[in-house]
């Protein structure tokens, strides 16, 4: 099963304000691309040499925040109260 199908099974109340901001220009020149491996929902993607990031499917784990060593590349916070992921089982 691919991750897109898995994401359909997660309940979200998507906020209109992104809670994570990524400087994708800086990412394109990042050699290590640690975020690709640690994000459990694979929100960070590398396609044809270009990085993309979709905050809507974020499960707010904090892995990218810890994994990315490139200073200010990832601006990370929780979504506003009540928004974001809402586990039905957990």
């Amino acid at each position, binding site marked *: 099963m691919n991750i897109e199908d*898995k994401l359909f099974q*997660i309940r979200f109340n998507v906020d209109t304000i992104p809670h994570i901001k990524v400087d994708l220009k800086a990412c394109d020149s990042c050699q290590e691309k640690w975020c690709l491996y640690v994000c459990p*929902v*694979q929100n960070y993607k590398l396609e044809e040499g270009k990085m993309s990031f979709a905050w809507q499917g974020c499960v707010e784990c*904090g892995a990218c925040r810890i994994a990315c060593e490139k200073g200010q590349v990832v601006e990370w916070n929780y979504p506003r*109260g009540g928004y974001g*992921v809402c586990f039905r*089982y*957990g």
Partner: protein
Amino acid sequence: MTEKFDAIVVGAGPAGTTAALVMARAGMKVALIERGAYPGAKNMFGGVFYYSEVLNQLIPEFWKEAPIERHIVRRVTTFMTPQASVSMDYENSNFGKPPYNGVTLLRSRFDRWYAQKAVDAGALLVPETVVDDVIRDGQRVIGIKARRDQGDLLADVVIAADGVNSLLAEKAGLKKSKELRRHSISVTAKEILSLPSETIEERFNCAADEGVAIDFLGACTQGIQGAAFIYTNKSSLSLGMATDLNSLREHHISIADLVESFKEHPSVKRLVKGATLKEYSGHLMPEGGYKMMPKLYGDGILVAGDAAAMVFYTGLSLEGVNFAIASGFYAGEAVKAAKAKSDFSAASLSHYQKLLEDSFVLKDLKSFRSASSMLANKRFYTVYPDFLCTMMENMFKVDGKPRKRMWGLMRQSMKGKISMMDLAKDGMQARKALL
């Protein structure tokens, strides 16, 4: 006017709810602030809640009313290579009797049920509210800033029970640095797979209400530090994995891909056959134990549960909820004592540390503090599972050739995989960590 509380607890997980419950029962004015739509909405764990004496004292015979899935009567530890596996299967019928040694839970149900107990005791639960920072008067923490209109709230004490990321303890300057934490944190992913309860009972060979916890080491993480698990709920399985964040980074292995390939292992495939995915989730988990604990108290602030990295993880055991509940309890007790003296200084709140040191929380974390170095030893995920499986193969495979005696079999299975020197070193390491 800004509202003032005796105590503000940030995070309605097991740690925060316990602290709020204890203080509310003592008649204190307590706010319990949670960013989720309801307590549990943001929380996920593997799935076994081990017996908590503290909870039993707060809510006698809690298992009669808590939303419990199954009583765990069997613990299986499985070492795997890509084709084979060796399991150690432990069963104890006493585990199926009250007070139950371990039970499976789903956090969205359990945390909500538990937080209601704090509300019943008089705590004010404030859901859908993110706390962004502490408010200080000089060095002293005197309240919190919530991300909402009139979000400044004051209190004599703030308890940071905001989980593994604890942005609050970080803001209060109590946490270890991100650089250090990067090397002692696991990334986890989990699936809830639904199966009819009768199928679970047949497949896992257990009675109604009873269940099995299986932990896997070896090929499931492609040899990097971590473990996989399958735990039985009433009519679903919790299947997931916890892997060291830094190892994923270094080996360019994706946690999401690992979970997918784990389900394809022959020993796992038949266990999850026909199951449908109900939910997928991810979370971080502190793995560093005692060495990674932040400073536990400051002027007007205490840190409890995962925020304080109080997870007991030895490779064979993984316990966090019972530790979180106990630390929340002692945090609440320390605040009660501080209130009796009207002294909320760090010196007064250091009583919290003392209470933890006298309890299993810091005693266990201290006695097993070397476990984290043992867990970082790659051979536990590569060489040893492989050795065990090869050993079994050499013992059971029948191919018409003359057989070797035990010692010869062991030597043959170890050949080219590990030196006597490393074996001795690892034995010492395991001894230091566990014996």
